[in-house]
C-alpha cells in the first residue's frame, strides 16, 4: 500500500487545467492500461491460488489411487492339489486337533515341484517355495477344517503368491534390474515364467485384504481387524456423544438461565474444547481412563471414550445452531396450547432440529473416524492379528493401521497402505455425503 498512485495524489480539480502532465489523454490511457493489467494480475493470482489448492487435492487423490488400486488385487497360482489323507490325518479319525496340527506344506509343494520339473537340492527347492506365500498352508488348513470330506480328493485351489512375486507380476519392480537388486533371482524369475506359461498364474481380486487381520507378510495382511476396531470405537462414541451432545445443546438453548456466569463458563469451555489439539485428548485418555480408572490398554472402548470427548463440542455446537433455527412461533404456539417446556422440546423443537443435529453428528463422527493421534496415546497401536471380538479386546483402528503399515519396511505394504487409505476415504465420503444429503433435505423444508 506504499506505492503512491498519482490519481490519489492530485485529484482533478474543478479548473481541470488542460496540459497538466497527469491529465493528458495519453497519460490517463496509460494509467488505465496499467490499472487494468493490475486488476487482471490480481485476479490471476487468486485463480492460481485456488488452482494450487485444488491441484494439490487432485494430486493427493491421484497419487493414492495410483499407488493403492493394486492393493485390492493379489497374484495367485492355481494348483491341482491332492488332499492326501495319509499326510493330513493318518489315523483317519478326522480329529480337529490332528487336522489343525498337520503339516500342509507338502500338499502344494508337490505339484509345484512337478510343474517346475528340475528343482534339485535344498537351496533350489527353498528358492522355488519362496515364490508362494507362507500363508498358503493356512488356506489349505482352513479348507480341510471347514470340510474334512475333501480329504482324499483332488481340488483346484488358488494360493496366494509371495509378496516379491506379487510386486514382480504387477510390474512394481522392473525385470531389467540387476539380479542383486531384485527380490527374485534369475532362477526364480524363470520358474515364474514357466508357471505363467502353463497359465496357472493370474491376478485376482484380493478378498483377503478385506476379510483378514493384520500380518507381517504384505500379501496376507488385511484391514478387517482395523475396520472392526474402528467400528467398535465409533459405536461407543456415537452411543455416548449423541445423547450427551443433544442434552447439552437442548439445555443451553432452551433451559439455561440467561446472563448467568456459570452458563457463560460452560459455553466458553465448549468453544475452547473444539480447538484443543487432538493429541491432548489422547494424553487425557492415558492419564484418566488408563492410569486412573484402570481401563484396559488398546481397547476400542477407551478409544471410543476419548473420541467421544473430542466429538462432543462439534455435536453441541451444530446442535445448538439447529435448535436455534427452529422458529420461535412453533414454541409459542405449543406453550399457548398448554404444553410444558419439556413437551415443547420433545414434540416440537427436537423433531424440527433433528436433521441438523444428525448432520453435525455425522460430521463429528467422520472426523473421529479419521483421527489417529489420540489413539496412539492409549495404545491402540500394536501389531494385532486377531479380529477384535468386542469393545474390550485389543484392537487398532483404520487410520492407525495406515500409520503402522506406512512405517513398515516391506515394499509390499506401500500399496496396502494406499489401499487402506482408499477404504478409509470411501467411508468418509459416504458419511459426508450422507451429511450433505441431509442438510439439503433440511434446507428445502
Amino acid at each position, binding site marked *: 500500500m506504499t506505492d503512491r498512485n498519482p490519481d490519489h495524489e492530485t485529484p482533478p480539480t474543478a479548473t481541470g487545467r488542460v496540459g497538466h502532465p497527469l491529465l493528458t489523454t495519453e497519460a490517463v490511457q496509460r494509467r488505465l492500461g496499467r490499472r*487494468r493489467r*493490475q*486488476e487482471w*494480475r*490480481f*485476479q490471476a*493470482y*487468486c*485463480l*492460481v*491460488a*485456488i488452482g494450487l*489448492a*485444488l491441484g494439490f*487435492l487432485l494430486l*493427493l487423490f491421484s*497419487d*493414492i489411487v495410483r499407488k493403492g488400486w493394486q492393493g485390492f488385487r493379489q497374484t495367485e497360482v492355481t494348483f491341482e492339489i491332492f488332499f492326501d489323507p495319509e499326510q493330513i490325518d493318518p489315523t483317519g479319525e478326522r480329529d480337529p486337533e490332528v487336522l489343525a496340527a498337520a503339516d500342509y506344506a507338502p500338499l502344494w509343494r508337490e505339484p509345484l515341484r512337478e510343474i517346475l520339473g528340475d528343482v534339485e537340492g535344498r537351496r533350489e527347492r527353498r528358492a522355488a517355495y519362496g515364490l508362494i506365500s507362507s500363508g498358503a498352508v493356512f488356506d489349505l488348513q482352513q479348507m480341510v477344517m471347514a470340510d474334512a470330506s475333501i480329504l482324499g480328493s483332488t481340488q483346484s485351489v488358488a494360493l496366494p503368491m509371495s509378496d516379491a512375486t506379487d510386486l514382480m507380476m504387477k510390474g512394481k519392480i522392473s525385470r531389467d534390474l540387476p539380479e542383486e537388486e531384485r527380490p527374485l533371482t534369475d532362477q526364480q524369475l524363470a520358474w515364474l515364467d514357466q508357471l505363467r506359461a502353463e497359465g496357472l498364474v493370474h491376478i485376482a481380486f484380493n478378498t483377503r485384504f478385506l476379510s483378514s487381520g493384520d500380518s507381517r507378510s504384505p500379501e496376507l495382511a488385511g484391514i478387517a481387524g482395523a475396520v472392526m476396531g474402528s467400528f467398535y470405537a465409533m459405536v461407543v462414541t456415537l452411543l455416548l456423544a449423541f445423547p*450427551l451432545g443433544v*442434552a*447439552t445443546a437442548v*439445555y*443451553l438453548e432452551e*433451559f439455561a438461565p440467561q446472563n448467568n456466569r456459570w452458563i457463560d463458563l*460452560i459455553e466458553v*469451555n465448549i468453544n*475452547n474444547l473444539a*480447538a*484443543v*489439539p*487432538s*493429541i*491432548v485428548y489422547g*494424553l*487425557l485418555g492415558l*492419564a484418566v481412563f488408563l*492410569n*486412573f*480408572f*484402570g481401563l484396559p490398554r488398546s481397547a476400542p472402548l477407551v478409544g471410543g471414550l476419548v473420541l467421544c470427548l473430542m466429538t*462432543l*463440542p462439534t455435536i453441541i455446537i451444530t446442535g445448538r445452531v439447529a435448535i436455534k433455527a427452529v422458529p420461535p412461533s412453533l414454541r409459542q404456539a405449543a406453550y399457548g396450547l398448554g404444553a*410444558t*417446556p*419439556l413437551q415443547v422440546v420433545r414434540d416440537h423443537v427436537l423433531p424440527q432440529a433433528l436433521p441438523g443435529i444428525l448432520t453435525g453428528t455425522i460430521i463429528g463422527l467422520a472426523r473421529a*473416524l*479419521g*483421527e*489417529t*493421534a489420540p489413539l*496412539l*496415546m492409549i495404545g491402540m497401536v500394536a501389531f494385532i492379528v486377531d479380529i477384535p471380538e468386542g469393545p474390550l479386546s485389543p484392537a487398532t483402528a483404520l*487410520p492407525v493401521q*495406515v*500409520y503402522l503399515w*506406512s512405517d513398515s519396511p516391506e515394499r509390499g505394504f506401500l500399496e496396502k497402505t494406499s489401499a487402506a*487409505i482408499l477404504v*478409509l*476415504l470411501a467411508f*468418509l465420503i459416504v458419511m459426508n455425503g450422507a451429511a450433505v444429503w441431509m442438510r439439503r433435505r433440511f434446507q428445502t423444508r
Partner: protein
Amino acid sequence: MFIILLIAFLLVLSSVAYRVGVKRALSVGGGSARALHSLPAYHGLYMVCWGLLPALALIVVYLSVAPTLIERTIVASLPLELQAEGPQRELLLSDIESLAVGDVASQAGEVARQAAELLKSVRHRSMMGLAAICLVLGVGGAAFAHRRIELQAPAIHRVEGAVKALLFLASLVAVVTTLGIVLSLVFEAFRFFGKVSVVEFLCGREWSPQTALRADQVGSSGTFGAVPLFAGTLLISGIAMLVAAPIGLLSAFYMAEYAKPRTRSMLKPLLEILAGIPTVVYGFFAALTVAPAIRGWGEQWGLDVASESAMAAGLVMGVMIIPFVSSISDDVISAVPQGLRQASLGLGATRSETIRRVVFPAALPGIVGGLLLAVSRAIGETMIVTMAAGLTANLTANPLEAVTTVTVQIVTLLVGDQEFDSAKTLAAFALGLMLFLVTLIFNVIALTVVRRYREQYD
C-alpha cells in the same frame, strides 16, 4: 458383564414400576385421569425416576471408585517388600489379575495365588454388596414415589425437574473434560518438574530423553531442554503458514469478491475437502511422495536435503490448513459492509484496488483471528509431523534439515512405553501442557478478535 446384568435388572424393575405407577394413579383418580393433576403416565415416570436414578448414580460411583479401592486392598495384603511402586508391582498385579480371571499366568508364585484368591473374594463381595444396595435403592425409591401418588401430586413438574437436572449434568461434561485435561496435564507435569527444573526444560538447548536402563551408564539421566522442539515446531508451522496464508487468503478473496454464487457454492465445499482428509493420509503423502520429491529437486540443484526435511512436513501441513484460513477469511470478508465496496467502486477504483485498499484493511482483524486459529491448528497437528518430520532434536532454521516438534516427541515418548514414573514419560505430559497452554492462548485471542470484529459491523 455383571454391571450390564445389574442395569438390565434395574430397567426391568423400572418398567414394572412404571406400570404400577400408572395403575395406582388411575385408581387414585377413581378410574379416570380427569381428576388427576398430572396424566397417569407422568406418575409412572415419577416412580421410574425414583427407582432408577439413585441406583444408576450408585453404579457410576462404584465404577469410578471401586477398581482403585480394590487394587489398594490387594496391594496392602501383599508382603511389605512387594508393596513398593514400580514395574515389578505392576507385573505382579497383572499376574494376580489374570489368575483371578482364570487365565494361566506366567510363573505364578504362592504370593500371587493367595492375592488372586483375595481379589476374587473381594470382588465378589463388593459386587454382591452393590447389587443388594441397588435393589434396596430401586425398590425403596419406587415405593417412596408410590406413596406420593395423590390426586394433586404435580408429577409432571417433578419429572420435568429431574429431566432438566439430567440435561444440566450433561452440559457439565464439557467442563469436566476441561478440568480433566488441565488436572491430568498439570499433575503429571508437576511430577516431571520435580525431577527436571522448569528453567532447564524451557531454556535448555539439549534434548535427549533416552534415560539409560542402569544408573551407572554414561548419560543415564537424559537431558530435557525443549528449545529445539519449540524451534522445530515454529519452523514447520512457519512454513505451513507461508503456504496457507497467501493461498487461503487469495482463494477467500476470489470466492467472496469475484466468484458467482454458483461457482462459489461449488468451490467452497471442494476446498473444505482438504480439511476433511484424515491427517494420517497427509502424513503418508508427505513422507512417501513429497519428501522424496523435494529431496530429488534438491539434489538437482546441488542442495543437501534430509530425507525427513521440515520442508516436506511444512508444505503438506500448509495445504491441510488452507481451508481454515480461506473459510474464516471468506466469512469475514463477506461481513464487510457492502457500502464500503460501493463507495470505493463508485470513485472509480477497480475491483482489485477496492479489495486491497478498502476490503482488506476493513477485514484485517478478522483475518488475523483466522490466521491465529490456523497457527494453533498447525502447532497441535501431530500425524503429519510424526510421519514426515524427524525424531532427533536439531536446533536449526534450515528448512531442508530434519527437525522434530513437540507433538512428535509426545508420541515417541509415550508409544510403547508403559511405566509412568520415569522422567521420560512424564516429559510428554509437560510438553502436552505447553502445547495446551499455547494453543489455548492462540484460540482465546483469535476468538476474541473475531468476535469483536463481528460486533463492529453488526
